[in-house]
């Protein structure tokens, strides 16, 4: 897995360097103007967060039912990344909303549920840190519940009338916006993969260290 790291790192770096150029050349949106360009980082952050949640949830399920420590290490790495990308989405969103809606935040269905999803994964990390022995299984359950909540967050804009734009915005992107958006999405997903590999490597090293300590005690 480590051999792939270098090329992915280079590719991601290159994509992130090119991204601002593509975004600057994209057309302005008719009602929102310049501030709409936050879209090109805001939505990909949330896509990366959903990817992190999927990885965390599935790895948590594997660890819970099959008792695999490798799955547990993957789950904790993915949970940290879910918190990271969620935080990015929750900061870029209000910055856009301040100009587009006039308010930093509104307690509508989509925003509230997105915040709650972030809180679920923060609680995952807290359980792991402060739960004591056996907290890996408890946290795995939390991760699984987080995965279960995430589809509700996605469809919340379709069910309720919210101030947040609908899911139909992305499939109906016109030519000028389509390119930069999907370029940034791929860049963010590659970044997620990169950071996941990095963090999982750390988790593996920590496990190796624990084994060395145990071997030392014998």
């Amino acid at each position, binding site marked *: 897995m480590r051999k792939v790291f270098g090329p992915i790192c280079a590719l991601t770096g290159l994509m992130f360097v090119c991204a*601002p150029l593509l975004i600057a050349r994209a057309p302005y949106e008719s009602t929102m103007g310049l501030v709409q360009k*936050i879209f090109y980082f805001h939505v990909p952050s949330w896509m990366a967060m959903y990817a992190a949640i999927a990885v965390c949830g599935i790895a948590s399920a594997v660890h819970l039912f099959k008792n695999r420590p490798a799955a547990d290490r993957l789950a904790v790495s993915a949970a940290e990344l879910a918190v990271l990308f969620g935080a990015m989405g929750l900061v870029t969103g209000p910055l856009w909303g301040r100009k587009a809606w006039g308010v930093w935040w509104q307690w509508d269905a989509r925003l509230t549920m997105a915040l709650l999803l972030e809180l679920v994964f923060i609680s995952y990390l807290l359980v792991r840190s402060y739960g004591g022995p056996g907290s890996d299984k408890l946290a795995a359950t939390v991760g699984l519940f987080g995965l279960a909540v995430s589809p509700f967050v996605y469809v919340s804009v379709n069910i309720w009338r919210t101030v947040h734009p609908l899911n139909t915005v992305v499939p109906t992107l016109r030519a000028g916006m389509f390119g930069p958006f999907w370029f940034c999405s791929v860049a963010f997903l590659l970044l997620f993969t990169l950071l996941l590999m990095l963090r999982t490597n750390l988790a593996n090293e920590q496990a190796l260290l624990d084994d060395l300590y145990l071997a030392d005690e014998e």
Partner: protein
Amino acid sequence: MMTKQSFAVVGIVLLSAQLFALQAPSGQTPAGQAPPGQGEFLPVDQLPPSEQLPAAPLLITAYAFVWIAVFFYVWTVWRRLNKVEAEMRVLEKRQRNPR
């Protein structure tokens, strides 16, 4: 003596507060710049561009936050990895030497 001093301090504070209060209304309307009281409010649909919230600082803050968050996270992983590797080296040295 303490009570006389405290009375004096309180007296000075109250006096200066009254003086400030008397000055305040006249201080806020320098001569010739105060507009006459408005008789009616006129509604307008769109804010003039000079009054609208500038978008550029928000955009820059958003992008800067993403970059900073990513680098901060990479730095924390790097820091933890260094700690783990240092401990591993200590352990390996200890395992190699006093056998």
